[in-house]
């Protein structure tokens, strides 16, 4: 009787070991992996984030046509004319913004690419970020009625100026060029397409004005482009100021350096599984000889 009982107990122990073994094996497989979201029908090409990998060599901070850009994943964002605030426009030249990012651990470079049929001195492009923890409205950080908003940080480039400008705004009409200019920009026009690269240190030391980029997570990012074409008869610019193509808020992140902890955990799991097998077989052998 007691012998039988002890056998049952030992069996239960073995069964428990098996179950634990199973548990080690399974949770990973059982976990829901976020599926590559199937794009909705009307927005077949839309992305929701830009992921900037860490480059090993030199960051193409002032070279919009560098070969290394092809190693950065491409994100495409639809653009709309700026309608939120007058003076609005109901049609804008730029329909899609293709965005790539790279960083080298110290500086980040973001490449904008878009179709514009003509190269004009007043062609311009910009990237916008939220600053700090406060949410900012995507239209220049417009004041919100029920939410206390923060400022936006705008990186601006215009063809004829050939440089990057680092700015802040908290609502239309409040655009201000910063005292400390951290942003560089360079454009290249070819085959009806602009490629404009913006670069900046990841951390500028001015968290009140500049968005600080870490490898910790996603930050909000938006885009704008102006077609600086002049009307042949009136000489008016087609797009200027608040008349531009804009995107909504999307996400950006600088990828963390490769993380090898997954391999360590896997190695520990393999050792545990081997140990489990060893104990199990020993136990079974003992059972046989008994």
């Amino acid at each position: 009787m007691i012998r039988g009982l002890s056998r049952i107990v030992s069996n239960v122990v073995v069964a428990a070991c098996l179950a634990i073994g199973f548990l080690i094996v399974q949770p990973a497989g059982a976990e829901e992996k976020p599926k590559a979201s199937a794009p909705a029908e009307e927005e077949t090409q839309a992305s929701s984030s830009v992921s900037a990998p860490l480059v090993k060599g030199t960051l193409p901070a002032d070279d919009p046509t560098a070969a290394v850009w092809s190693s950065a994943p491409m994100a495409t964002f639809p653009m709309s004319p700026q309608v939120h605030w007058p003076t609005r426009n109901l049609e804008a030249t730029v329909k899609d913004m293709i965005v790539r990012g790279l960083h080298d651990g110290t500086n980040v470079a973001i490449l904008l690419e878009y179709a514009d049929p003509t190269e004009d001195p007043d062609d311009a492009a910009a990237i916008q970020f939220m600053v700090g923890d406060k949410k900012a409205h995507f239209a220049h950080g417009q004041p919100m009625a029920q939410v206390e908003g923060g400022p936006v940080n705008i990186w601006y480039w215009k063809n004829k100026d050939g440089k990057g400008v680092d700015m802040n705004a908290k609502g239309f009409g409040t655009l201000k060029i910063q005292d400390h200019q951290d942003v560089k920009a360079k454009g290249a026009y070819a085959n009806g397409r602009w490629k404009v690269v913006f670069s900046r240190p990841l951390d500028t030391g001015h968290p009140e004005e500049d968005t600080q980029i870490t490898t910790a997570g996603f930050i909000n990012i938006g885009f704008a482009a102006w077609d600086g074409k002049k009307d042949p008869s009136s000489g008016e610019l087609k797009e200027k100021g608040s008349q531009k193509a804009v995107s909504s808020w999307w996400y950006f992140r600088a990828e963390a350096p490769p993380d090898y902890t997954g391999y360590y955990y896997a190695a520990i799991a393999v050792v545990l599984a081997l140990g489990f097998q060893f104990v199990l077989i020993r136990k079974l052998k003992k059972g046989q000889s008994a």
Partner: protein
Amino acid sequence: MGPLIKLILLNVITYLILKFVVPNIPGSAPLPASLMFLYLLLVTAGFLILATVSAESKEEFWGPIQRFLTGESIGGLQALRYLVLILFPLLVGWQTYNSTAVSDAPPGENRTIHPAPPGEYAGLSNPVPKTPDTIQQGKGFYAAFCSPCHGGNFDGKGSAARGFNPPPANFADPTTIAMLQESYLFWRIKKGGVGLPIEGMPWKSAMPRWELELPDEWIWKIIMGEYDGAHQSPRTWE
């Protein structure tokens, strides 16, 4: 049939039922993999308890496993045994590695589409008399100010809509203005996207704050034109 085969069969059948039969029961939905795993684990645990209640059933269950893992001279099965002993730890390691992989997905967003309006807007009624004339005027204003985003067909597919996230509301959809009172639309048009409370994520909305550009009377007319054009009726409390 050996008990081990029975256990495997039982698990396979349970899996097939959970995977293909349960989701098809009316009112049901596909089960998450973690829940399916839990059910299979329960099946296995139950089976193991049954298989080990007596010495005979225990021997019947464990005997073949024991012989496979530790028996001498099992012939061709010897190679299979080594294969299992090598593959099992590798499988465990692989699964562990997968489970620690960092997610590439940006943060999820839970935006409330129709948050509650401020109290002063609740119960306002449209002061403009509803006549073919005023409706027509409202449709004219709609065409001028709203249709670039919300579409000439009231379907949210205006030419300026493509870049905006959230997309402009589709008024022809029965879950938008048909569920709302006129006073709600009055608030949303007047105060725009920036007037939303925090759960409506006002920082993402492109909707202009029309109170700065249009008189209230025009807004009320636009509301009438919108319902009429989209073939919807305002929600009432009758």
